[in-house]
């Protein structure tokens, strides 16, 4: 301890020297002409280490220097590298770390520019921040939990270390500040109060922003708010009751954390990193997508072989039968494995929601407890990413509109603390996500009144409860008269619905007055494959996504109407639905122009049912969705292309796009 206090500068300088040397060796090699110079440098390091009290380091350096002078012609590069590694170890092994706050800008400028290192840093820091956030929320519930404090401390410490290594001074400074505060908390000199939690969360937010800046390739990772965050942390350390005066007096000296903690934290994080590296491989997402794509094609090709007439005729052959069954099993397994590679647990999303619920409930003065279930439920990475915003929006809605103020709840005979449940599970080949609150529930009469006022529902229309609930998903339903700080910013549930539909999912709403509301998001397991109906128009083939199809039928002449000589309508189960003739929309020659000879598919787009007129239905097929390729970025009404059984390309229809164009026409 004494030694450390006396000579930190010398230790830092020596480490630097050795690091530089190692780097030079790696970059420049060890040509024979440079060996005497190297030997001299090493001898000097040896002397300095001796003076600074690093006995072991001094010995290693002398040894190296001697071996270099003795054997100038030998294969020295490997020997040198190994020796330097030992020297580095010797220097850090004595408990000395370069003191981050006072560290000079390291001479190795190239490290910070190494994109791979920076990418690793971003990934690892984010992981740490997620853990930290999770632990902070845990700490809030049990303020004394030493495991939580330690874990948070380690997270900040590692980020600080990495940031120092890669020269991100702003991240390093903030992480250091928080780390110092946490160390006080660990020693019982700082109480974990809600305001302390706020400050730590604020610093997490700052680091998240700074890391985003690093990712975006900004020249400096420093983002606005650094000084403010540091001030807040310092104020926390200085001003909180329970912090002894000595601690705050000590603070400007920036006492480094106890060496024991350093020694524990560093090897552990290194070991963990090594373990993670050996058991996982980082793969470019596009490669993964291509794999999933091709596996999808393989599954389809496999099913084509199975259903080939010749093969089916040979079905009596038990051996062929067995081999085919085996092939099916294997392709299915390969597909599941390939899909699983793109899957992530939904827990991360719930994590974000937990944080948001905490902040919001404090802001609006409501007591909310979050219950999560099925955090391990896996779903497609893209879906998880795209789902984040809608999920946050719905959680905001629940707290803002769904949950009553504590007094209201108590008056209604409910517990003052409300529950918000986030649950996820797999059901019938879909991922279901539940967002449930035990708040006031949806008020049918209010919704209906508002919908009428906005012209979303006709006065005389008789609507079922489900229909009424669905009105809140209509565009223009959520509007200005309920703007609060939290929700109702002009984006309403219609945005949520659009996003969910973009992911080919559906929203279901269940609600009971006074008991609460449950939103069910039903999403596909993957975006790569869809079930589709193969339909024809003339010689062209199209695929209608099955999830958008309600039913299909051949209309009778008396069920077709033309409104105002313009809009054609079909009577379907007592409802008049607009008819969209696909051949007209796409400018094709159909087999027939008579709807009674054609087929009407009742499809749904943005909650609106309509009839799509096509010539014939050929069948149902699972297809892999593919983009149309370069130069055909966004084609209205077309979601993508798919390779059909015979190797031809078919276009997958985009109901939203078709309907949108029809509506604007």
């Amino acid at each position, binding site marked *: 301890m004494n030694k450390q206090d006396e000579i930190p500068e010398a230790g830092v300088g020596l480490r630097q020297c050795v690091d530089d040397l190692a780097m030079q060796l790696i970059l420049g090699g060890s040509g024979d002409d440079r060996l005497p110079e190297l030997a001299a440098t090493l001898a000097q390091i040896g002397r300095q280490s001796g003076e600074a009290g690093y006995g072991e380091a001094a010995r290693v350096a002398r040894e190296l220097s001697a071996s270099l002078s003795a054997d100038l012609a030998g294969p020295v590069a490997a020997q040198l590298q190994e020796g330097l590694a030992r020297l580095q170890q010797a220097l850090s092994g004595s408990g000395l770390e370069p003191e981050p706050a006072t560290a000079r800008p390291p001479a190795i400028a190239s490290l910070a520019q190494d994109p791979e290192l920076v990418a690793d840093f971003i990934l690892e820091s984010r992981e740490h921040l997620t853990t930290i956030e999770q632990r902070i929320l845990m700490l809030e519930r049990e303020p004394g939990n030493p495991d939580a404090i330690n874990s948070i401390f380690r997270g900040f410490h590692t980020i600080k270390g990495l940031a120092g290594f890669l020269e991100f001074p702003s991240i390093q400074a903030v992480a250091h500040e928080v780390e110092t505060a946490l160390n006080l908390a660990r020693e019982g000199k700082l109480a974990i109060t809600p305001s302390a939690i706020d400050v730590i969360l604020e610093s997490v937010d700052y680091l998240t922003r700074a890391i985003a800046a690093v990712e975006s390739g900004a020249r400096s990772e420093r983002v606005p708010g650094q000084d403010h965050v540091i001030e807040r942390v310092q104020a926390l350390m200085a001003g909180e009751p329970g912090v002894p005066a000595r601690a705050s007096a000590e603070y400007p000296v920036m006492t480094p954390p106890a060496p024991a903690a350093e020694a524990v934290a560093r090897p552990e994080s290194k070991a963990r990193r090594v373990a993670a590296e050996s058991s996982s491989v980082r793969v470019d997402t596009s490669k993964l997508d291509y794999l999933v794509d091709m596996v999808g094609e393989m599954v389809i090709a496999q099913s084509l072989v199975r259903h080939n007439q010749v093969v089916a005729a040979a079905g009596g052959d038990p051996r062929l039968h067995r081999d085919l069954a085996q092939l099916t099993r294997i392709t299915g397994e390969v597909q599941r494995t390939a899909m699983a590679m793109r899957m992530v647990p939904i827990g991360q999303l719930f994590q974000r929601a937990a944080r948001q619920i905490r902040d919001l409930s404090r802001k609006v003065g409501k007591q909310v407890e979050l219950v999560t279930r099925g955090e391990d439920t896996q779903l497609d990475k893209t879906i998880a990413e795209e789902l984040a915003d809608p999920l946050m929006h719905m959680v905001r809605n629940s707290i803002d509109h769904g949950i009553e103020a504590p007094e209201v709840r108590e008056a209604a005979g409910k517990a003052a603390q409300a529950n918000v449940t986030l649950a996820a599970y797999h059901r019938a080949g879909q991922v279901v996500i539940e967002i449930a609150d035990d708040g006031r529930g949806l008020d049918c009469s209010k919704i209906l009144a508002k919908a009428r006022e906005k012209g979303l529902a006709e006065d005389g229309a008789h609507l079922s409860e489900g229909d009424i609930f669905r009105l809140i998903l209509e565009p223009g339903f959520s509007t200005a008269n309920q703007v609060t700080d939290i929700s109702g910013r002009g984006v309403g549930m219609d945005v949520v619905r659009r996003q969910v539909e973009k992911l080919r999912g559906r929203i279901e709403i269940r609600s009971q007055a006074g008991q609460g509301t449950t939103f069910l998001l039903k999403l596909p397991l993957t975006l790569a494959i869809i079930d589709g109906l193969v339909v024809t128009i003339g010689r062209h083939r199209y695929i209608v996504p099955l999830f958008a199809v309600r039913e299909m039928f051949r209309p009778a002449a008396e069920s077709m109407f033309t409104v105002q000589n313009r809009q054609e309508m079909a009577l379907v189960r007592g409802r008049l639905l607009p008819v969209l003739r696909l051949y007209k929309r796409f400018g*094709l020659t159909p087999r027939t122009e008579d709807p009674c000879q054609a087929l009407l598919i009742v499809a749904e787009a943005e909650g609106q049912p309509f009839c799509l007129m096509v010539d014939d239905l050929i069948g149902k097929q699972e297809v892999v969705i593919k983009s149309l390729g370069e130069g*055909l970025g966004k084609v209205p009404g*077309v979601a993508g292309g798919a390779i059909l059984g015979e190797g031809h390309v078919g276009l997958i229809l985009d109901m939203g796009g078709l309907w949108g164009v029809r509506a604007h026409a």
Partner: protein
Amino acid sequence: MNATVDARMPWVIVQLGTRLFGLNCSVVREMVIMPEVCEVPGVPDYMRGVINLRGRVTSLVDLRRRLGMRSSTEDTESLCELMEQRAQDHRRWLDELDASVNEKRAFTLARDPHQCAFGKWYDNFKTDNILMSGFLKKFEVPHKRIHALADEIGELAEKGCMGQALEQLEQARTGILSTMLRLFADFQQLLRDSHREIAVVLNGSVGAYAVSVDSVASVEKLSEADTEELAGKGLEIREGLVTSVAKRAKGQGLVLVLGTESILDPAMHSGIPQT
């Protein structure tokens, strides 16, 4: 004219109609016989659709249309339509011969096979397609034969051998005319069948895309054509897809060099030099 012709690199020379175009071989990924094309609605007319390139959906540019030329399908179809008309010509020709004999009036349509519309076309039509030129030879004899009927039957009618004349007419209908009609039909089929375009797959900025060409002439090195020489021939390069003009070796003619980076840019003009 910003892009210069790199004389060290081989170029893929493709044919569109009568013109030759050069594609930088470093952007050409592969060349395949045109698979079935799936048309995509609501896109610029030069985007012909998408094709299946070994499991990858790839967009296809109709390079003729992109360069403001008539698409080769249109070319083929209009030739087929022309042949259909010429077939009808001969049907009507025989009808008229029949009528002139029956009504005892002069026959005014072409007696010389080189004077009918098909004959004129036939004598002037040139193609380097061996299948087509080989097939066209089959027209020669029956075509001469059918036109010779005018004199033969006319002579019989003049001699008053009406029965013989009418019998010959009837034979001609089931014989030589139907032979001619079948030849016309087969020729149209051949035109459509031999209308096999090539899809040249190019590296785009993100993925690959294909362009349709009539045929691939060769892969060879080119040298830059002299601007003055071009000016002498009245060729002037404007800003567009055609970035420069190159010379083939041994004076085999000129090649229009295409700047592939702007093929998918709708704002870029074809820039085919005017002669």
